[in-house]
C-alpha cells in the first residue's frame, strides 16, 4: 500500500515533466480520464451553445424548454439517442458498418495524447507531436469512407467520396501552413527546430512572440490558410458538402441511427477541438497568456493570474442574474433554484481558483481552453453566416488559392529566416 502511495506521490516531486515523460502510469491514467471527461462535457456544451448561438443569430430563442434556457438540452438529447432503435440496413456490409464509428472516434480522441494544455499538462510529449496529430487525425477520413461504403446506399457513398476528396485536397495546404510554422521554431541559438507540441510553444515563449505575429504578415497568412483548411478538414459549414442536407440527406451517416450516429457526432466535435488546439499551439502561443513579451513584470503576472477565477465568478454572477429574471410561476421554481445552485457551484470553483497555489497550476489550462473556445465560437459563427460552397468552388479554393499561397508563404518564411540575421545583425 505504502509503495503504491509513494509511486503516486513520486510524480508530484518531479518538475517540468509530463506524466508520460516521467513514466508514471497512475498519472497517465488520471490525465487520460480527465481529458476524456473534459472533452465529453465540452462536446455536450458545444451542442447546446451551437443551437443557442445559431438561434440568436437567426432571431430565434433556440432550446428553452429543458432546464433554464435549455441548459439541460444536451442531456435530454443524449438520452434520446441512447434509447433510439439501432438500425442496420439489410444489405449493409455488417462488419465494416460496425467498425466505422469506432475508427472515427478513435482517430478523434487519440490525438489528445499529445495536446499540451500546459508545460506539464499533457499526457505525454512526443518528439513527433505535430506529425502524430496530423497523421492520426487523417485516419478519420478512413472511417468516413468506411461508413459511406458499408451503408450500401447512394447518398452515403457520394457523401463519403466528397468528404475524402475534400480532406485529401485540403490536407496539402494544411501541411504547407504547418511546415512554415515549424520552420519558425528553428530560429533560436542552436538552429534546430522541433516537432514536439510542447517544444513549439516553448519556442514561441523563447522568441517572445506568438507565431501568428512572426514575420508579419507571413505568420498571419499561414494561420489563415490553416484556419480555412481546418474547417474543410472537419467537414463543417461552409465546407460541409459531405453532409449537405439539401442534396444528400445526411451524407455519409445517413444510414446510422441511435448510438452509432451519436459516435459520429461526438467525433466530429472532438475533431473540431483537436484541430483548434493544433492552431492554438502552432500560432497562438498554446498555454501562454496574452502579451508574454510586452507586459511581463510581476504585477502583470498577478493580474493575468486572476483571470481564471474572475471568469468563473462572472459566469456565476450571470447565473444569479438570470435566476432572478426567471418567471415567478410555481412551475419554474425548481429551475430557478437549480440555476442558483449551479451559480453557487461555479462561484465556489472560481474562489478556489484565486488561491495562488491553484492558479499557478491551472492558469495554463485556462488560457489554452479559452483560446480553443474562441475557435469553437468561430465555427458556429461560420455556420451562421457563410453559405455552403459548391464542389467545384471548393476544389478551386483548395488547389488554386490555398496551395499556391501556402507554397509562397513557406518559401518566403524560409528566405526571411535565412536573411534576417544578415540584415538585422550583421
Amino acid at each position, binding site marked *: 500500500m505504502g509503495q503504491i502511495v509513494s509511486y503516486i506521490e513520486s510524480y508530484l516531486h518531479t518538475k517540468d515533466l509530463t506524466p*508520460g*515523460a*516521467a*513514466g508514471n502510469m497512475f498519472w497517465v491514467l488520471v490525465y487520460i480520464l480527465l481529458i476524456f471527461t473534459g472533452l465529453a462535457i465540452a462536446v455536450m456544451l458545444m451542442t447546446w451553445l451551437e443551437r443557442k448561438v445559431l438561434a440568436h443569430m437567426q432571431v430565434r430563442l433556440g432550446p428553452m424548454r429543458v432546464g433554464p434556457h435549455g441548459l439541460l438540452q444536451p442531456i435530454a438529447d443524449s438520452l434520446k439517442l441512447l434509447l433510439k432503435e439501432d438500425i442496420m440496413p439489410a444489405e449493409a*456490409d455488417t*462488419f*465494416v458498418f460496425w*467498425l466505422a464509428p469506432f475508427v472515427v472516434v478513435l482517430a478523434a480522441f487519440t490525438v489528445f495524447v499529445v495536446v499540451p494544455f500546459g508545460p506539464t499538462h499533457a499526457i505525454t510529449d*512526443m*518528439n*513527433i507531436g505535430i*506529425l*502524430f496529430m*496530423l*497523421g*492520426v487525425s*487523417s*485516419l478519420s*477520413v*478512413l472511417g468516413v*469512407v*468506411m461508413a459511406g*461504403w458499408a451503408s450500401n446506399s447512394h447518398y452515403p*457513398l457520394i457523401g463519403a*467520396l466528397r468528404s*475524402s476528396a475534400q*480532406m*485529401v485536397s485540403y*490536407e496539402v495546404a494544411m501541411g504547407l501552413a504547418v511546415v512554415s510554422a515549424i520552420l519558425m521554431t528553428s530560429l533560436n541559438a542552436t538552429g*534546430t*527546430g*522541433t*516537432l514536439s507540441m510542447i517544444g513549439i510553444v516553448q519556442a514561441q515563449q523563447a522568441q517572445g512572440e506568438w507565431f501568428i505575429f512572426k514575420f508579419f504578415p507571413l505568420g498571419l497568412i499561414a494561420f489563415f490558410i490553416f484556419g480555412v483548411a481546418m474547417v474543410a478538414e472537419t467537414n463543417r459549414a461552409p465546407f460541409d458538402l459531405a453532409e449537405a442536407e439539401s442534396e444528400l440527406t445526411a451524407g455519409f451517416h445517413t444510414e446510422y441511427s441511435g448510438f452509432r450516429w451519436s459516435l459520429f457526432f461526438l467525433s466530429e466535435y472532438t475533431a473540431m477541438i483537436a484541430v483548434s488546439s493544433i492552431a492554438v499551439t502552432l500560432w497562438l502561443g498554446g498555454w501562454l497568456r496574452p502579451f508574454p513579451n510586452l507586459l511581463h513584470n510581476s504585477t502583470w503576472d498577478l493580474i493575468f493570474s486572476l483571470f481564471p477565477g474572475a471568469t468563473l465568478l462572472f459566469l456565476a454572477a450571470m447565473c444569479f442574474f438570470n435566476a432572478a429574471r426567471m418567471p415567478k410561476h410555481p412551475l419554474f421554481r425548481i429551475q430557478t433554484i437549480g440555476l442558483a445552485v449551479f451559480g453557487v457551484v461555479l462561484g465556489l470553483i472560481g474562489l478556489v481558483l484565486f488561491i495562488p497555489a491553484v492558479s499557478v497550476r491551472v492558469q495554463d489550462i485556462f488560457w489554452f481552453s479559452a483560446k480553443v473556445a474562441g475557435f469553437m465560437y468561430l465555427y458556429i459563427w461560420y455556420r451562421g453566416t457563410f453559405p455552403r460552397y459548391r464542389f467545384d468552388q471548393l476544389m478551386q479554393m483548395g488547389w488554386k488559392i490555398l496551395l499556391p499561397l501556402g507554397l509562397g508563404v513557406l518559401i518566403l518564411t524560409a528566405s526571411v529566416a535565412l536573411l534576417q540575421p544578415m540584415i538585422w545583425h550583421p
Partner: protein
Amino acid sequence: MAPVATPFFFYLLSGIMLIGGILVITRKNPVHSALALIVTLLAQASIYLMLYAPFVAGVQIILYAGGIMVLFLFVIMLVSIDRSVRERQFNSQWVAGIIAATALGGLFIAVYTKGRDIFPEHALPVVENDNTQKIATMLYGQYMFAFEIASLLLLVAIIGAVVMAKKRI
C-alpha cells in the same frame, strides 16, 4: 521513459501484422483486403515506434495509412465488387511466387541461425529525443543526392500519370 513489456508488445504487433497480411491476400472483397492492409501498416508503424524511430512511424501513418489508402479505396470503389466476389481467384504466376518465397524463407533461416555474426553485439544508443533532427541532417547532408534523385523520380511519375491519363494535353 524505459520500455515496458517489450516482448509482449513485439509479439502482439507482429501477430496483428501477420494476421492482417494473410487477410489481405485471402479476402475476396477488395475493400476488406484494403482495410486489412491498413491494419498491417499501422501495426508496422507501432513496431517502428518500438524501435525508437518515431519519425519513421509518423511518416508511415501519414503516407501509407492516410494518403495512399484513401486513394486505394477510391480505386476499389470504382471496381465492381459484386463480380470480384463471385469470381474464382487464380494465380498464374505461382512458379515465380514459390521461387521468391523459398528465397525469402532461406534468407530468414540464414539470418536466424547466423544472426549473431551479422548483427552487432550491443544495441545502438537510442536517439529517440532528437530522432527527427538526426534524420533531417542526414537527409539534407549526407544523403542529399539520393534524396534529390528520389524526388525527381516522383516528379517523373506524376508527369507520366498526367500524360497517360490525358491523351490530348
